[in-house]
């Protein structure tokens, strides 16, 4: 009983102190939108876990060349002796995730797979976002016939089952990592365009944009100061979540043998290689699976956190 009472008292005192500061009129220094958003994000524990996890994965992936081959072994090792000796070892201190059929260290391959998966996620989302922003902005600003053409085109794209569409595109342009970027990137634009278009439309009709127009503000000023800052948040959120989606799509493609070409390790190819041994050596499949799960989840949680943090109507900054 004692403890909760104490913490409650603490909170009340803190709130009172804060109110006192406000009442004294001693105002906070100028705060920026992104500074405030970051402050709110820091209070969101799940989002902070997600950021930390993404940072860890990124740092490991970026620095992999420096230490992974010497510590864990070459992910693409191919000398016959190690192949036979180390084939499908169970996880141990030396090989924390075990080894695969060809005696290659699975952790090392998962780390190199992270490089590919993260790159695909970020590059493909970059492509989708770039196309989607331009298309969404065109549709919303010019309206009328542009809006109709672009949005009906988006509807057509969305009418196809997404994965099937990507597979069809890969079948046309061939597999390999660059084509995976292109296929996932190009086919991802319609949802971004829709989100951005509706964000712009709702802001465009708002009273504060009318207010700016009534003051005589130029179009450039209205777009830069009023429309863009108020519509971009939804895109940041959407793009963050989209990275996770792109990683998943790439894994699915690689799993089907349509994405990254072996021996390059991507999380999808690793699962595909490991699935044959699910009953005897399950770590071959589970470890890359966990990598996908945690990373995609991290991007989703981060997107969620960003959405809350970028909402200015949320109290206390």
């Amino acid at each position: 009983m004692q403890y909760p009472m104490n913490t409650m008292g603490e909170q009340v005192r803190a709130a009172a102190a804060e109110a006192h500061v406000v009442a004294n009129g001693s105002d906070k220094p100028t705060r920026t939108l992104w500074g405030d958003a970051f402050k709110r994000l820091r209070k969101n524990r799940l989002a902070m876990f997600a950021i930390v996890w993404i940072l860890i994965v990124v740092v490991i992936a970026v620095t992999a060349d420096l230490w992974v081959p010497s510590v864990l072994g070459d992910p693409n090792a191919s000398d016959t002796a190690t192949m036979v000796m180390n084939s499908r070892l169970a996880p141990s201190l030396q090989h924390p995730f075990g080894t695969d059929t060809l005696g290659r260290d699975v952790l090392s391959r998962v780390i190199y797979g992270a490089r590919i998966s993260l790159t695909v996620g970020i590059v493909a989302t970059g492509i989708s976002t770039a196309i989607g922003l331009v298309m969404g902005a065109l549709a919303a600003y010019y309206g009328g016939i542009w809006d109709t053409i672009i949005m009906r085109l988006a509807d057509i794209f969305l009418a196809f089952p997404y994965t099937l569409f990507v597979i069809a595109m890969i079948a046309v342009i061939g597999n390999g990592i660059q084509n995976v970027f292109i296929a996932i990137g190009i086919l991802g634009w319609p949802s971004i365009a829709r989100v951005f278009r509706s964000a712009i439309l709702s802001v465009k009709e708002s009273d504060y944009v009318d207010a700016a127009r009534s003051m005589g503000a130029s179009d450039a000023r209205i777009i830069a100061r009023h429309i863009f800052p108020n519509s971009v948040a939804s895109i940041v959120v959407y793009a963050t979540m989209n990275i996770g989606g792109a990683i998943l799509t790439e894994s699915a493609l690689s799993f089907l043998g349509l994405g990254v070409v072996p021996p390059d390790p991507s999380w999808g190819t690793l699962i595909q290689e490991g699935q044959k041994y699910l009953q005897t050596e399950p770590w071959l499949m589970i470890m890359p699976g966990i990598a996908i799960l945690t990373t995609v989840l991290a991007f989703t949680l981060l997107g969620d956190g960003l959405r809350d943090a970028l909402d200015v109507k949320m109290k206390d900054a």
Partner: protein
Amino acid sequence: MADNNTPLLKVEHLTKEFPTGSGFLGGRFSKKVVSAVNDVSFEIRAGETFGLVGESGCGKSTTGRAIMHLDPPTSGKVYFEGKDISKMNKAELKDMRRDMQFIFQDPYASLNPRMTIGEIVSEPMVIHGIGTPEERMDRVRELLDVVGLNPEHINRYPHEFSGGQRQRVGIARSFILRPKLIICDEPVSALDVSIQAQVLNLLKDLQQQYGTAYLFIAHDLSVVQHISDRVAVMYLGKMVELSDWKSLYAEPNHPYTQSLLSAVPVPDPDVQKSRKRIILAGDPPSPIDPPSGCRFHTRCPIAQGRCAEEVPEFREIGAGHFCACHYATPFPIKESYIDL
């Protein structure tokens, strides 16, 4: 250029129509229009308050927006200090906007949530290139003080303020360039009654201080009465009656004005009980297909055959008192209409 006889704002035969329908290709092939404002004319003199009342959807806000050229009028002319707004080029229009400002109804929607109070209030100065950043901030602090806000809150965001405070921010913004005319589009109807009086008094004080003219749009006759010199009543896009507020409130001539005034509640319960109200039947007709002749004839208690055929002229029935009704009769508001 603008001598004393030129009204500050002159509106002539203002008409605003919106295309309707949202069918294939945005309905651009449909011929139907919403006639939101139809042939409205009036003048506003420097320093006066012109009240514009009517129920929701009667076109009073559209009138304000058309004057501001936020939605350019379909036809008709708006003269500001004798100059035709529709003939102005971009630079002239921008200059005109220094002198004509807007206060919005919804204080939650009219302030950009991503800008600080200082940025919001100083924006008109920035747009018109007035002053250095320091001078602007000094002016903002001064104005925040005038409208009753703490000047030290200059770096706060709109969401940190209450509705009444936000409306004060909007008022500060509209006054920072010392405009000659402010179009107030229901500036208090989103606020609590207790706050309404404060904001109305603030607007009155500011008018005395700066000599600004107001076009005051409202749906609440008692609010308009509190602030206006002259009042115009609109119904379904048409102006039905225009007069100085005393004669409008004492002797409304148009049956629509009469029914509106009879609906204003009286704080004395005995009087309220004994009063006979004119209750209009039904809803206002759709502005897509307005009634022929007098637009009010479908709900008018004294309508006759002629009303459905002939559009009543907006004629002067007394000194400065205009009314658009074939059978307008002065109606002392204390008595009952029903027994006539």
